[in-house]
């Protein structure tokens, strides 16, 4: 595997412009002759499909939902960053670039991050133009708020539903192209294989989730916009259908998989209440603008929160990180919460939580104002916990939320497989070892609206394609192999449900590969995961037929992939002996317990190459050079 990031020459400010000039174009009359397959309809997928459709390409979009508007981008709450500097507080493209590289603990590619910062303003312009109802000031101009890891306000928002509003905006833009005839939406289809011909990605096999039939689709480029894999932990803030299968399929076809162990644990989620728990609900990071995080100063203090006097409260984030206070980046806030809970200061019935308290903000700003800004989050908190967050502090605890790792892509967002692109959370590119809040929406839309339309054209324009139709042997072979796998799962007829096995895997991942990792724990996990996988293939049960609407079979196929992927995840974590961002190795920390990077040995992206069933994956390294930003200890004190 050769890793050539294709980073354009020249000064960083000019790289993207000169690259766009050097990319081949496709004549407007020829565009309709190119078929582009977009898998996933979240922010990245919907925006890519809309833009490519506007340009005149023939686009097919596949979603496993009943409607493309359901993709999990919809659940993003707090906001989207852009270097507009509307509040006049000193923001610039350079500063957003700097904050993102630093926030990612210096494990992202400079050129990509700079381009992201450069495009951020245009995203806001476009989204406002297509009708996204962003929050406004009384003068009619756009409003901003602050997010973690930044000392200024650059986050645009639509109440606590920014992801929903942006996704519905991108979805509407895409549906406009459906009406125009350039985009076809294929709902209730799950990609089960990527079809290669002549060394290029030339199509996909999808399972029709209503009939169970396998369908073949050929194309000139395949765009995976399939999101992240935080559900490898079973309990996460992701939706139930979020999975690793598309990424894993690409990996097995030869695409490099980068930094799988870089996962983000979000500090402010509603804690789990019991064994039955199916998901964890996020409380937006924006709440840390007004909420103060604390635990009682005394261990095992079971008094109701409001009875703990001010001087007996430990506002541990403000104490440890006076400069950023409650707005430290997510990885740091999460670890700090874990530390106090592990030392016996946890609150609530399970003692696995810390408080997020709005008492002081309500006093300062009034309850009305707080309701205005975060009302829907307080409602959600009430529905789940039966507690009123205005009257008593919320109980929160970290939960898996986002995955920075993903398919390795070059500057064009193309994987190591020609013709196979990865956009949004599915790729590894921009967030390094930790993503800053409000940057996921920015990246998904930058990739889809602005980057892919140029770089996919560059690929199409520069490539001589041999003919490929769904009648080719490559397509029929693919369907045959998938069908064999499905038959094998159905035939097991064991005793364990896919959910049970998934929960078992999640427990291992959370306990041994979660917020704090060590060689001993990781090695333990490496022993346990293959055992669960073996158990799956011996004892899983999937009732019903395969040629039917069969959610249990869908789940089983996803769990099978998680069980393979998890092992690579742990190997990657074991290989990276430093702490950086969300990846915390107990062996590598400062005397104060902060993460300690090892730039000499680990300033690279770890890219894994598949070698075949039962064989050890091979590790390649893409060295990361920091020419514009000085690497330093990431301090928020």
């Amino acid at each position, binding site marked *: 595997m050769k890793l050539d990031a294709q980073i354009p020459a020249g000064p960083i400010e000019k790289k993207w412009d000169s690259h766009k000039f050097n990319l081949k174009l496709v004549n407007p009359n020829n565009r309709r002759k190119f078929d582009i397959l977009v898998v996933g309809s979240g922010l990245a997928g919907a925006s890519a499909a809309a833009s490519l459709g506007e340009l005149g390409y023939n686009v097919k979009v596949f979603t496993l939902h009943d409607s493309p*508007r359901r993709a999990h981008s*919809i659940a993003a709450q707090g906001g989207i960053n852009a270097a507009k500097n*509307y509040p006049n507080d000193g923001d610039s493209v350079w500063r957003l670039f700097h904050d993102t590289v630093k926030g990612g603990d210096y494990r992202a590619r400079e050129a990509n991050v700079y381009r992201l910062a450069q495009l951020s303003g245009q995203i806001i312009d476009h989204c406002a133009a297509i009708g996204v109802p962003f929050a406004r000031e009384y003068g009619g101009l756009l409003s901003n708020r602050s997010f973690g890891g930044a000392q200024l306000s650059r986050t645009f928002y639509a109440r606590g539903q920014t992801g*929903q509003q942006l996704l519905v905006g991108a979805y509407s833009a895409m549906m406009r192209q459906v009406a125009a005839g350039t985009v076809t939406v294929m709902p209730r289809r799950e990609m089960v294989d990527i079809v290669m011909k002549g060394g290029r990605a030339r199509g996909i096999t999808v399972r029709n989730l209503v009939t169970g039939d396998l369908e073949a689709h050929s194309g000139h480029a395949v765009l995976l916009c399939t999101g992240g894999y935080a559900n490898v932990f079973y309990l996460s803030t992701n939706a139930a259908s979020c999975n690793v299968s598309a990424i894993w399929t690409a990996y097995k076809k030869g695409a490099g998989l980068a930094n799988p162990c870089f996962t983000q644990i979000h500090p402010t989620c509603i804690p789990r209440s019991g064994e*039955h728990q199916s998901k964890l609900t996020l409380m937006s990071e924006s709440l840390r603008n007004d909420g103060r995080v604390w635990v009682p100063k005394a261990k095992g203090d079971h008094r109701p929160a409001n009875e703990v006097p001010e001087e007996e409260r430990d506002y541990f984030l403000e104490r440890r990180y006076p400069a950023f206070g409650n707005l430290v980046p997510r990885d740091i806030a999460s670890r700090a919460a874990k530390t106090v809970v592990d030392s016996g200061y946890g609150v609530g*019935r399970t003692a696995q939580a810390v408080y997020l308290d709005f008492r002081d903000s309500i006093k300062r700003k009034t309850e009305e104002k707080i309701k205005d800004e975060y009302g829907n989050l307080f409602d959600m908190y009430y*529905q789940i916990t039966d507690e009123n967050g205005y009257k008593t502090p919320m109980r929160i605890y970290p939960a898996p939320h986002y995955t920075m790792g993903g398919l390795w892509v070059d500057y064009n967002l193309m994987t190591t497989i020609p013709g196979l692109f990865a956009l949004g959370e599915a790729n590894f590119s921009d967030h390094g070892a930790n993503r800053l809040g409000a940057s996921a929406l920015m990246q998904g839309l930058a990739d889809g609206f602005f980057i892919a339309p140029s770089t996919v054209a560059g690929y199409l324009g520069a490539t001589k394609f041999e003919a490929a139709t769904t009648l080719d042997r490559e397509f029929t072979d693919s369907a045959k192999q998938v069908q064999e796998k499905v038959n094998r799962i159905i035939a097991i007829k064991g005793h364990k449900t896919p*959910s049970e096995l998934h929960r078992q895997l999640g427990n291992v991942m959370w306990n041994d590969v979660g917020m704090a990792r060590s060689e001993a724990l990781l090695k333990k996990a490496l022993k346990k995961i293959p055992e669960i996988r073996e158990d799956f293939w011996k004892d899983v049960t999937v*009732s019903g037929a395969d040629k039917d*609407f069969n959610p249990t079979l869908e789940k089983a196929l996803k769990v099978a992939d998680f069980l393979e992927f998890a092992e690579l995840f742990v190997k990657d974590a074991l290989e990276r002996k430093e702490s950086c961002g969300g990846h915390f190795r107990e062996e590598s920390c400062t005397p104060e317990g902060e993460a300690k990077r090892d730039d000499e040995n680990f300033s690279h992206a770890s890219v894994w190459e598949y070698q075949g069933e039962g064989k050890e994956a091979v590790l390649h390294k893409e060295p990361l050079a920091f020419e514009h930003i000085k690497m330093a200890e990431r301090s928020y004190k």
Partner: protein
Amino acid sequence: MKGLKHFSVTVRVWRQAGPKEPGKMVSYKVKDVSPDMSFLEMLDVLNDNLLKKGDTPIAFESDCREGICGCCGLVVNGDVHGPDEHSTVCQLHMRRFSDGDVITVEPWRVKSFPVIKDLVVDRSSFDRLIAAGGFISVNTGAAPDANSVPVEKDKAEEAMDAAACIGCGACVASCPNGAAMLFVGAKVSQLALLPQGTPERANRALNMVAAMDKEGFGNCTNEYECEAVCPKDVKVANIARLNREFLLANLFSKK
């Protein structure tokens, strides 16, 4: 926090093997229900038990389980999205029920949303409504600076109230006429309230209403059931605005 004593319930569920198969209500006992469980987690437990006995689990849809994706939608004891006001059924918790309760669970029953299996229905008609005009025709890259078009704060807030719609279809499911007026009204309102949406407002109203008729949705007769069940509290005022937009478009449009 309320008591954590576990209890048992009986659920009567609509089972239907396929779109053309006959359906019927089937009863199941679910034991060991925790009041902290969500309603859908209770169904998960039931499904895992069915699976272990070799039975086919009950097909129902849900994804985000935090009330925003719009996937879930069940009629619980005759209430669309269950007994809680302005909430999706995934946010309903078992603390709302007591030991020995018999809970009836049915799918959306609307002609325009045919049943696929058990509690799962086909809502693709909503996508076709949006494709008919629920957008602003601006190509990527052509937009002016976002602050060059000021939007009155109150109007932006009102547009946001309408835009909060999650496309779950509860409004249609609760309407005796199976009307999609609240869904379409919300989109037409959102875009008519914003200056960016003004140039296309007449065509949008005409095209979306025509699409609504074509899909077989009924008409509004001011029952207000839709507003009562809407998980996002989208107001019927949006239907009034849709009617106004439609009337003005008919009076003044050149088409």
